[in-house]
């Protein structure tokens, strides 16, 4: 119980952050034509920001199952890396079914806090995940309720909030690392090409995001390979 409470406390700032970000997810989902319960269910069972945002973009067009799968696998590939990384730091008690259940909560922020522990206990990890999950789901619900009531001009302005969060994740590391900056620039420019150029413009965004991501990361890995062991801390 003590370990659970310790985790719960460590999860407070993450939960508050998720509350505000998922609020804008709820608003965006409503503005794209989803009902409130659809948005809440998506958040409750998926628990990811970039993946859900790309996901609802794919969902508005029927039948794009392969696009959905490919885009989710690419966008969420980083989680498998975090899971591998954290699997090296868990206590001996943290195995079997506990890993299968608690692996669900592997988000960027939960991973970042958990990997600061010397040894991650299952109860600590469950405590750490509790408030972020509640914050994420509740924030989505609030976003859909309040989003319906807000004047359109405020709702439109709030749709930029989630991109603001993405900027806050990528810009500080880009200041410190030239290679990160270059990878960001490559992927961003490439995706602009997919937006504006003929033919490329016809490709669904779920696929183009994946392509631009993979090319950016491959070029980064070829030209700026990183030294092992110290990269996790700066990971977004």
């Amino acid at each position, binding site marked *: 119980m003590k370990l659970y409470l310790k985790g719960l406390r460590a999860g407070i700032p993450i939960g508050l952050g998720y509350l505000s970000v998922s609020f804008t997810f709820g608003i965006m989902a409503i503005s794209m034509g989803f009902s409130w319960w659809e948005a809440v269910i998506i958040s409750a069972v998926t628990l990811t920001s970039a*993946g859900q945002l790309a996901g609802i973009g794919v969902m508005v067009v029927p039948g794009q199952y392969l696009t959905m799968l490919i885009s989710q696998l690419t966008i969420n590939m980083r989680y498998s890396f975090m899971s591998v990384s954290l699997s090296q730091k868990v206590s001996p008690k943290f195995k079997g079914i506990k890993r299968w259940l608690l692996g669900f909560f592997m988000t960027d922020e939960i991973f970042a806090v958990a990997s600061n522990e010397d040894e991650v206990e299952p109860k600590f990890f469950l405590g750490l995940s509790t408030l972020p999950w509640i914050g994420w789901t509740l924030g989505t619900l609030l976003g859909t309720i309040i989003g319906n009531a807000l004047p359109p001009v405020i709702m439109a302005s709030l749709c930029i909030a989630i991109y603001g969060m993405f900027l806050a994740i990528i810009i500080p590391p880009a200041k410190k690392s030239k290679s990160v900056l270059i990878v960001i620039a490559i992927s961003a420019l490439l995706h602009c090409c997919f937006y504006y150029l003929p033919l490329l413009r016809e490709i669904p965004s779920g696929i183009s995001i994946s392509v631009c991501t993979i090319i950016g990361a491959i070029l980064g890995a070829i030209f700026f390979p990183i030294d092992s062991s110290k990269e996790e801390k700066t990971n977004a």
Partner: protein
Amino acid sequence: MPDFWIYLLILAGSTYLIRAVPFACVKNTIENRFIRSFLYYIPFAVLASMTFPAVIYSTGNIASGIVGLLVGGIFAFLNKSLTLVALFASGAALACELILMLF
């Protein structure tokens, strides 16, 4: 939303598996330098692709989108928290929209 449940299954299922399978099954560290580097750059590349150029269209008005991007970018550059950057980007976009309405 048509196909909601099938889409949800793919969205939530693939997200869950990509987290849980490596967590439950991988016992050794990845040593390959290329793969480690590739995985390291993935989050930055994903968020860059998702943000550009979608951010400038997110408000439905390019002018307020660009203003929001610039203000958000400046606050992110100053290492402000995620919530604060998101709030200021929205606030700047709203201010821009309201000013445009006056004219």
